[in-house]
Each structure stands twice: as structure tokens, then as C-alpha cells.
């Protein structure tokens, strides 16, 4: 009841502010403040920054959870975090890293870069873009509130039922998981939809599909995967919610339900999810390697083909997470072969990267270091991936530390390295300042060494018989030394991350100002406009005359892009408070359901419906800005 009152007061308070019934002057001050500007922005560049900051915060939280787990496993029989606490840590670590760190950071890069790379002024649905962020954020916040309100979810990030049902996981933990992810998931889904429409409809003149930079291509395919994979998660979470909150029986076998359905639904979503987080990293790699090798990407067409093929195959392999469920040899064989097939397009990509560097002039700037570190690391993850695709062998690997090692090689060595490469690469474009190179290099080396030290031994831990998700292991069975090594390695990653944070703070204060073409090697459209770009991005929409649009102009001896339209006033969408209001509604509703407070849930849903109506009857047509003429000092 107490929470209900707090929520009510908050809602009234906000309503007062929004309607202006509070204090006109105060309202004016709020409206003009920078905070209000950020809360209501619909500018994709600002939303990108919001995604990045939120993603980093969650990345640090997830990292702390991981560090705690490795501390517990430092020595056998440790009693720092045991039983349920450890399960909470491992669940929140996985969930946070996948949904609340990797996904938003990918969206950060997509928001910051994709519209610029296709020569667009904005995304297709700026409002939806803002809504997507705030939904993700309120979902993430809700999930992490579980630590304070009655315990975190403890059934693993896969939340397999049986264990995730009320009977075996009492308390609100799994409810936080269900509702937090549901809300964040809706945000992600509409975010992906937005980028699909953006890439299809908003390309500049001449920017054909086969001239799109690789990062945009991967963002496009990733958005497609989001669009078709997340509904499965939505359904799964909905059913789990019904089972836990409203007495349904989807997963309770004593009532005719089946836990295997959860596994299917989860992995129908979950496997594409893996590609959702890895494909943009491939895109970053392609752009970064090409830029810092001073060479056109080798085999562009086959790269695009491989990207689409990986996305396509991603939907047909989910059962390889379920080889040991006992679905029979036929099903296992079919999905094994389909899984192995993915190695082919992935291999094409790796060789194309190598041959992009071949004959080039490689400069080891920090983004390139991450890309160079990525290749062998990711290839190792891919190797173990193929090994895991073989059902008989998988019977041994499944649910052992071998799997843990494998997916960290892919998700850290692939996604996180890719994200760091992208962040270092585009930071000057996003913030107008170059991150410090020396600190960046230290960040890279400590993180890389720490990473391998942590996860390489885990392959062997798995083969020596250590199951995953255990909070302890026995002495004298050959597991101590490797676990010790693995825990020591974490220090490297922690130091690396701290250096990165120092770098950010240092750069924001004293960083070197970036030019439009910050690395002086820019090939794609984003480097043709100032860093950071003006709110309308392109004063004049550029005319694209080939792949690597800016490079084409550079080769032709032009200093800038040829405009495709005369200079004129530019239409901009108005900022809106509705996204944050609607997300607040979802947050309140979610929290209401979790604490079984139906009134609170109802209030939340009412806020959602009201914001929908506000939006539907919103006749605000935006405003126009007069761009600075790029010829008259508008540049840089």
C-alpha cells in the first residue's frame, strides 16, 4: 500500500507539471533546462548518447556481478556467495549483459551512425525511437530494482521453467525478470522496426542497397532479426507471467504443461538474439578495418550476402541449445547440420577482413587494435562453436564450463570487442572529441590479456567435468589451478574497464577536438559532416555516387559531398514528453503486477492508455530550422 501512495503522489506531481497547473514560472524553467531537453529529445544523436550511457552503467553493474562470481570461485569451498545468492548473481549477470548492456550499446551505435551513413536527417520515427529508449531504460531499471525489493531472479538468464515457476522460485525475483524484460523487449522491438523503415525509406539519393556501408547493412539485418525474434520472447514471457501471477499451466507438467515449450520459445528468440548482438560487431569491424587499412572492403557483395545468410540461418538452428533435451537423433542431426552451415558465411567474413588488410597500410589506432584483437578471439569462439554443433560431442560440452568459455569468446571477444572498436571509432563523431590514444591502448591490452586469462582455462574446466552455474567445486579433482587463473584474469578486464572510464572523463574535460573527418581516413558519409553533427545532420542531402561515398569524392578530388538539393529550411520533429510518460506508465504497471498491487498496475496501464491518446491527438507538426551554409564556415 505504501508503494501505491508513493506512486500516486509521483503521478499527481508529474501531471501537475505537465498540465502547467503547478507553477507557470517553474514550468518554464523546467522546459528550458538541459535535463528536460535530454528527457524529451527525439534527436537520434542524443538518443544514441543516452543508450550509450545507460548501456555503460549496466555493463559496469553486470561486470561487478561477474567479479563477485569469480571471487567466489577463486578457491574451492569458498562461502562468499553461495546457493541462492550465487544463482541471483549469475542470472542477473547474464540478463544484464545481454539485454541491458550489449543491446543498448548496439542501439547506441546504430542511432549515432546509421542515419549519418545513409545521408538521412533523422530516423523514420523519431518519436518511436525515443519511446524505445525509455521503455528499455524503465525495463532495465525495473529488473535491477529486484535487488532491493525481495531478491533478484535466480533461475538463470534462460529462466528455464520448472525452476522459474512459483513453486521452485518463490518470491518476486522471477517476476522482475518477466516484467522487466517484457518492457525492455517492447522497447527493443519498436527500436528495430524503426531502423528497418529508416534504412528502407530514408536513404539519400544514389545510396542504393549495394552501396550501404557494412555497418548499416548489419544494423539492418539485426533490426530484421529483432523484429522476428522478439515476439517469441514476448509470448514466452507472457506465458510465464500467466503461470506465475494468474495460475495458468503452460509449464507445470503436473497440470499437463510442458517445460520443453519454454525452452523452444526461449531459444527461438534466443538464438537469433546471439546474432542480433554479434552482427553489428561484424559491421563495425568491416568499417574499422577498411578505414584503418586505407582500403576498400574486400568482397563487399559477398560480405553483404554472408550477413543476410547468417541472419536467415539464425532462425533455423535454435534446437542446438537443446540437444540434450532428448528430442531424438533426427531432430538433433538436422539442426546440427544447419548450425554447421553458419560457419561458412562466418568464414567468408573472416577471410574478407584479412584480405581487406592485405596490401593496405594498416594504422594501429585504438579502434583498429580492437578490430585486430577481435579476429583471433572471435575465430576461436567460432571454432568451439562448430565443435558444439556436433550433438554427440555436445552431450559432453552442454552445460559445462566449455560452453561458458565458448559464448564468452563470442560475446566478449566478438560483441564487446566490436562495441569498444565502434565506441572508440565513432566517439569523435558523437561527442566531437577524440578519446585518448594512450589510455585506449592500455585499455585494450589489459582487457585483452585479462579476457584470455579468464576464459581460455574455462574450456579445460568444462572438459575436466565442471558444470556451469555452480557456486563451488571440489578439491583434488584438478579444478583448482584453472579456476584460480580464471579468477585472476578478471583483474585485467576490471583494470581495462576502469581505464576506459578514466579515458571518458579525461576526454570530456580535456579531449582533443575532432575534425569532421576525425581519423582523416573516413570513407563513409558520417565523416563528411561536422563532429558532432548539427541537429539536422546534413545541411543539404548529399548525392551518393558510389560505395564508400566520401572516399569516391576524395578520389575525384572533391573536398565535400555534392549536394542533391538546394539549401533550404529543414523540418524537424518537436521534442516530446510522451515517450517518458508512457514508459513511466509501463514501469508503474510492471511494478504493480510484481507486488500484486492491482490498483498500481491499473494506474500504470491508465497512464499508458492516456499517453497513447495524447499521442494520437497530437497535432504538433514540428518546427523548421535554417541550416548554416556549409560554404560559410558551417564546416567543422
Amino acid at each position, binding site marked *: 500500500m505504501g508503494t501505491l501512495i508513493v506512486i500516486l503522489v509521483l503521478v499527481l506531481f508529474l501531471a501537475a507539471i505537465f498540465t502547467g497547473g503547478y507553477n507557470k514560472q517553474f514550468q518554464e524553467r523546467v522546459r528550458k533546462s538541459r535535463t528536460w531537453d535530454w528527457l524529451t529529445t527525439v534527436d537520434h544523436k542524443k538518443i544514441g548518447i543516452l543508450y550509450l550511457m545507460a548501456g555503460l552503467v549496466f555493463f559496469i553493474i553486470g561486470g561487478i556481478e561477474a567479479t563477485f562470481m569469480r571471487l567466489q570461485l577463486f578457491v574451492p569451498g569458498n562461502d562468499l556467495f553461495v546457493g541462492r545468492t550465487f544463482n541471483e548473481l549469475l542470472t542477473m549477470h547474464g540478463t544484464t549483459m545481454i539485454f541491458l548492456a550489449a543491446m543498448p550499446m548496439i542501439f547506441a551505435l546504430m542511432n549515432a551512425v546509421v542515419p549519418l551513413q545513409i545521408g538521412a536527417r533523422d530516423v523514420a520515427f523519431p518519436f518511436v525511437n525515443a519511446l524505445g529508449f525509455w521503455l528499455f531504460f524503465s525495463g532495465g531499471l525495473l529488473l535491477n530494482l529486484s535487488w532491493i525489493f525481495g531478491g533478484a531472479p535466480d533461475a538463470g538468464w534462460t529462466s528455464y521453467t520448472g525452476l522459474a515457476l512459483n513453486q521452485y522460485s518463490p518470491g518476486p525475483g522471477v517476476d522482475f525478470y518477466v516484467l522487466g524484460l517484457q518492457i525492455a523487449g517492447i522497447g527493443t522491438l519498436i527500436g528495430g522496426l524503426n531502423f528497418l523503415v529508416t534504412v528502407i525509406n530514408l536513404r539519400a539519393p544514389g545510396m542504393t542497397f549495394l552501396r550501404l556501408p557494412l555497418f548499416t547493412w548489419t544494423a539492418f539485418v539485426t533490426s530484421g532479426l529483432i523484429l522476428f525474434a522478439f515476439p517469441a520472447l514476448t509470448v514466452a514471457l507472457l506465458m510465464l507471467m500467466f503461470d506465475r501471477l494468474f495460475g495458468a499451466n503452460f509449464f507445470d507438467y503436473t497440470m499437463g504443461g510442458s517445460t520443453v515449450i519454454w525452452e523452444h520459445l526461449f531459444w527461438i528468440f534466443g538464438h537469433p538474439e546471439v546474432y542480433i548482438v554479434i552482427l553489428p560487431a561484424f559491421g563495425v569491424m568491416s568499417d574499422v578495418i577498411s578505414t584503418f587499412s586505407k582500403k576498400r572492403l574486400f568482397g563487399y557483395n559477398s560480405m553483404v550476402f554472408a550477413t543476410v545468410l547468417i541472419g536467415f540461418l539464425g532462425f533455423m538452428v535454435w534446437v542446438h541449445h537443446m540437444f540434450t533435451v532428448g528430442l531424438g537423433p533426427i531432430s538433433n542431426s538436422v539442426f546440427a547440420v544447419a548450425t554447421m552451415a553458419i560457419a561458412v558465411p562466418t568464414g567468408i567474413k573472416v577471410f574478407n577482413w584479412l584480405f581487406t588488410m592485405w596490401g*593496405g597500410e594498416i594504422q*594501429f589506432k585504438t579502434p583498429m587494435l580492437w578490430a585486430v584483437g577481435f579476429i583471433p578471439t572471435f575465430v576461436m569462439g567460432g571454432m568451439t562453436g562448430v565443435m558444439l554443433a556436433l550433438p554427440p560431442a555436445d552431450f559432453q560440452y552442454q552445460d559445462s564450463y566449455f560452453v561458458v568459455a565458448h559464448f564468452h569468446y563470442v560475446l566478449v571477444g566478438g560483441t564487446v570487442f566490436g562495441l569498444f572498436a565502434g565506441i572508440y571509432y565513432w566517439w569523435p563523431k558523437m561527442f566531437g572529441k577524440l578519446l585518448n590514444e594512450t589510455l585506449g591502448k592500455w585499455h585494450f591490452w589489459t582487457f585483452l590479456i585479462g579476457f*584470455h586469462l579468464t576464459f581460455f*582455462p574455462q574450456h579445460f574446466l568444462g572438459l575436466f567435468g565442471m558444470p556451469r552455474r555452480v557456486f563451488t567445486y571440489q578439491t583434488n579433482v584438478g579444478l583448482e589451478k584453472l579456476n584460480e587463473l580464471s579468477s585472476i584474469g578478471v583483474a585485467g578486464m576490471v583494470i581495462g574497464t576502469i581505464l576506459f572510464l578514466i579515458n571518458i572523463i579525461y576526454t570530456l574535460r580535456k579531449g582533443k577536438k575532432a575534425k569532421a573527418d576525425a581519423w582523416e581516413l573516413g570513407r563513409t558519409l558520417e565523416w563528411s559532416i561536422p563532429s558532432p553533427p548539427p541537429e539536422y545532420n546534413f545541411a543539404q542531402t548529399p548525392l551518393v555516387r558510389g560505395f564508400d561515398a566520401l572516399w569516391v569524392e576524395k578520389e575525384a578530388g572533391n573536398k565535400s559531398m555534392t549536394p542533391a538539393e538546394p539549401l533550404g529550411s529543414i523540418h524537424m520533429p518537436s521534442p516530446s514528453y510522451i515517450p517518458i510518460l508512457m514508459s513511466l506508465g509501463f514501469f508503474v504497471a510492471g511494478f504493480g503486477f510484481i507486488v500484486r498491487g492491482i490498483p498500481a498496475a491499473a494506474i500504470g496501464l491508465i497512464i499508458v492508455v492516456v499517453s497513447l491518446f495524447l499521442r494520437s491527438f497530437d497535432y504538433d507538426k514540428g518546427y523548421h530550422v535554417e541550416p548554416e551554409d556549409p560554404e560559410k564556415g558551417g564546416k567543422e
Partner: protein
Amino acid sequence: MERLRVWRIGLLVSLVMLLLAGCSGDPSLSVLDPKGSAAKIQLNLIYWSLGLMTVVFVIVITIYVYVLVRYRKRKGQNRMPEQVHGSTKLEIIWTVIPIAALIALAIPTVQYTFDLAKEPPAKDTVIIDVTGHQYWWEFKYPQYGITTAQEVHIPVGKKILFRIHGKDVLHAFWIPSLGGKVDVVPGRVNTLTLDAQEAKVYQGKCAELCGAGHALMDFKVFAQKQADFDKWLAAMKQPVASVSASSSEANGEKIFKQNCMGCHAGINPNIQGPNLNKFATRSTIAGILPHNDENIKIWLKNPQAVKPGTLMPKIDYLNKDELNDLIKYLDSRK
């Protein structure tokens, strides 16, 4: 730059050496030291795939190192590389060769997948019904009508058909040295055919997260020569010897009947603990602590501290004599 790279490679190499020299895993638990035909097949496939993958890795790394060393930007250099579009020939090569390699991998994979799924003829097979409970394992031998928990005895050289049942949440039944795992799925029966080729004690694990006590849901497999196995069977079939009426064991039996029977003798099907017949023959308490009187006391006093999440309640209300009597009685159950 150069020095750093060398340092890193050196570090990796020395790490691998350390691993190979220092730790090879425990022979009763290691996938790499198989003692059963299923595990041997699986290890063959692991090595075959690892071999193929290593070849790929070496090729990639060779090109990688060459490219990085040969084409890095040197001081003062400002060359304009040729903007190559691609090479159809090369691209076909690195599409076709991996496909060939994958076919070479897929054929034995499918073969083994079907081989491992075959069930042996019932005649020469020992059938064991395994049930995974939250944090302990139950083993029933339907052919011999005996039930035990936490420790399973099998004859060497014979095929064993494990029929795996679930009661509560998902678990996974895994004996690394004998072969791969299979999930315990409530509401369905999975099978797993294994055999042991060496008389030895192997360790078993639960591999699927099943709750707070997941890490401690261990069991032991005693692979015995046929004669020893038969002896064990015969002993198991004997009813528990009755205790003399006035002894402290008799008092212990009374306490046992009052406090333990409800769960540990299958009276209430909803509350089920491990069957404690022949308790004295078990080598562990709760599957993890070595069997001795001290550990029984530790377990009884606070089971949650030993195995988080276990359903076993605290038996801390007995006085010292009662406790000793109970232990004496338990130790008499041979």
C-alpha cells in the same frame, strides 16, 4: 608494438604449456580420460573436430600475422593502397573448402548421433531408473527390485540403460568419464546408454541449473566386476537386519521411526527423501560429505549449511545420547 605482440604470444604459449603440464583433470571426472564406449566415441569426435578447426585456425593466424607485420604503416610512409574490390576466385575458394571440411565433419556426426541413440537389447542390459530430485539422485533397478540413492553400482563391460525421470525441475544427468549427459525433464522419460570398461569409482554431476543446491548435486558410480556386482546385488536384496531390543540401536530405531521415516521410506509420495536402507554401505552423506559420524552430525544439525536449498529439515532438537543412538542405528543398516 612489435614487442607487445611477441609478449602476448609468449604469454599465451606459456599458458597452454602450463595447462598441459600442470593440470590434466581428475581421471574419475574428465571428459578427456574416457572409460566407456560412449565417452570414447564422443572424445573421438571432439578430437576430430578440434583437429579440423585447428587447421582452419592455423591458416587464419598465419595470414593474420603475415598481414599485420607486412602491411602495417611504417614511419613517414604515406602510400595509397590499391582499392581492390574483391576476387571471385579467392572467395569461391574460401567458400568451397569450408563446406568440404564441414561435410567431413557432418558425416561422422550424424553417424554417431544415431549410434548413440540406439537402445541395446534388453536381454544383456542392466536397466536403471534414475530420478532427479532437487539435489539428490534416486536409482531403481526394476530387474532386481532394489532402490538406492546417491550411489549407483554397475557391472563392468555390460550395457547399462539409464531411464531418466523428472519430478520437480530440470536437471541433467552427467558422468563425464562414461559419456555425455542427458536432461532430466519432468513429464518425460529420456534414455541414456552407457557402459564402463574399467572397475573404478566415477563421479557424476547435475549439469542443469536446478536451484540453490545445484552445485552439490553429485553422485557416484561404482563400476564393479560382474562377481562383485552380483555380491552387491545379493546384499542389497537382504532385508535390513533387525536390531536387538534393548540396545542403543533399538532406541535409535525408535527415533528414526519418529523423525525420519515420513520422508525417507516413501510413505508420503509428495515428500520424498533418499531411501536410507543400507545407509551404512554408502560412502557419502548427502552425496558430498565423506561418510563418518562427525559428518552425519554436521548434516543433521544444519543441512542448509551443507547443501543450500535442501528440503531436509534441521534435526537439532535431539540430545547428545539420542543423536548418538540414531547414528548407531543408521550405521547398522547394512
